[in-house]
């Protein structure tokens, strides 16, 4: 299903003989509206439209060339068949292709986990306040245990939020997964001690739940750098609320530049937010979506597949 912006673009091009710079321009305006309403960041929208335009104009030139081939031979017959795609369908398909290509990775499937060569694999979860990190930590621990048969250790490294440690303990209890806590210690110390324990006791994956923080909070961003320095996580996931608006670009860029993310998790996708932030974050960090949070309960975590999110953003 396409949002009204994309439908408007398609209708605008219906009956058009071929895609040209002029009719593409107004169709692009409709798509622009659709993407902005889906909360894709403005600079990302501009880049995306530029690529779609180049591809659409470029391909229409190719199609025209193919159409002029003699239709006597078999190959020509096939080429002619491919030209029978109408311009408006062609345009929408280019948008979908560009979007899917942007969201996915080269192989098209989910991204492989960067397992540690020896010792436990460390996952660090970071992000803004309330984005779903603690809940995702529980979900991820459960998933790694169930799907990859690795023994997980959850680490309560949020010492600021009232009852944050307790929240993770309740989740751990529900899942039968150990939660490491170290009252009175700083988050870098907690993570360091947890890692050592994991190493000696044979925990195979360690999941660090950190406190929510603003990317502009200098001391807290420095704290993340310290945790990273001590524990060297193999995976650092930015956990992002799917409802996030234009700020996705600033936040993702800052977290990525400061501490180097290896992917992001988009949460609360069981709502009706279009999740355009996924496109923005992908563009600005170069990292892929790794998981999707699809509900409050702990089994509601899915591995990311690009086509699903692309069609959601399109409407």
């Amino acid at each position, binding site marked *: 299903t396409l949002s009204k912006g994309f439908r408007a673009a398609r209708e605008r091009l219906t009956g058009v003989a071929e895609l040209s710079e002029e009719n593409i321009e107004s169709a692009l305006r409709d798509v622009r*509206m659709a993407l*902005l*309403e*889906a*909360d894709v*960041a*403005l600079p990302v929208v501009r880049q995306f439209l530029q690529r779609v335009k180049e591809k659409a104009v470029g391909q229409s030139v190719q199609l025209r060339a193919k159409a002029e081939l003699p239709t006597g031979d078999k190959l020509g017959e096939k080429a002619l068949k491919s030209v029978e795609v109408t311009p408006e369908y062609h345009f929408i398909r280019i948008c979908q292709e560009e979007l899917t290509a942007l969201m996915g990775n080269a192989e098209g499937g989910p991204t492989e986990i960067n397992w540690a060569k020896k010792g436990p694999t460390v996952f660090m979860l970071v992000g*803004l*306040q*309330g*984005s*779903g990190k603690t809940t995702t930590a529980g979900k991820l621990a459960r998933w790694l245990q169930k799907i990859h048969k690795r023994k997980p250790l959850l680490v309560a490294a949020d010492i*600021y*939020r*009232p*009852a*944050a440690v*307790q*929240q993770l*303990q*309740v*989740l751990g209890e*529900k899942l039968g997964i150990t939660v490491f806590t170290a009252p009175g210690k700083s988050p870098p110390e907690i993570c360091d001690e947890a890692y050592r324990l994991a190493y000696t006791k044979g925990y195979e994956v360690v999941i660090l739940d950190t406190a929510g923080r*603003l*990317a*502009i909070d200098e001391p807290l961003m420095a704290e993340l750098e310290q945790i990273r320095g001590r524990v060297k996580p193999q995976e650092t996931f930015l956990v992002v*609320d*799917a*409802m*996030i*608006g*234009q*700020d996705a670009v*600033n*936040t993702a860029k800052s977290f990525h530049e400061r501490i180097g993310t290896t992917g992001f998790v988009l949460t*609360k996708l*069981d*709502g*009706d*937010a*279009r999740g*355009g*932030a996924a496109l923005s974050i992908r563009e600005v960090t170069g990292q892929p979506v790794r998981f999707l949070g699809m509900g*409050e309960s702990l089994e509601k975590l899915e591995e990311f597949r690009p086509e699903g999110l692309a069609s959601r953003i399109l409407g």
Partner: protein
Amino acid sequence: LLRKKQIDADLLNQLEEVLLTADIGVKTASRIFEQVRSSLSRQELKDEAAVWSVIKAESRKLLSVDAPPLDYARQKPFVLLVVGVNGAGKTTTIGKLAAQLTGEGKKVILAAGDTFRAAAVEQLEIWGQRAGVPVVKGKEGGDPSSVIFEAIKRAQKEGLDVVIADTAGRLHVKAELMEELAKVRRVIKKADPTAPHETFLVLDSTNGQNAIAQARTFKEMLEVTGIVLTKLDGTAKGGVILGIAHELAVPVRYIGIGEKIQDLRAFDAVDFVDVLYE
């Protein structure tokens, strides 16, 4: 040939950049630009300062809702219900508000109406301790309505001034969860037919256009009377509130500007618009 007067194209591009990246949204931004176009002369439309002055005035106008000032003394006990999607900042806002009202000499009691999420009650209890106010809680996984009912009854019995009811976060698309809130309202009315006296929707200012759907749905189900816009200490501008306040005619009452107990401010449209466009 009378061609419609336009905002200079380069200036319009710049303006769009500022308004759209502030999450004002395409529809509200167009509305603001239309006001600029119609209220300024051809010459003025090239003058950046003149254009900005109309943008700011129109933005303030969108935020000005004709609503009486908040008066926690108009009923005793005054019952405030706090609702919103997951993670918006409800529990933290309640802690801050409890402290503020206590500081004004009011006797406040909190109702731990989130009986669902892990450690939600414990979180509110810590805020209660910080604000120096009691917290009424039920048994784990129990009915939120009965906890809130109990808190109101206790406030009536002990002559307390304000009851603030926390509720579990919920996405507005979940019909059964929205129905649970409707039930909370009905049960509150059993304790006091005039209550709740205010229902605050807590909105996270980092949200984009989805905040509009949230606000519409919560208002439809629950007669929302006020909005709290949280996390304005971050880089998000919360511009989506312009369209929301205007469309739903609900006033923004407070803004959250941090995670500490004192980080709550009464909403001021002039200050907000200045910061929005700085």
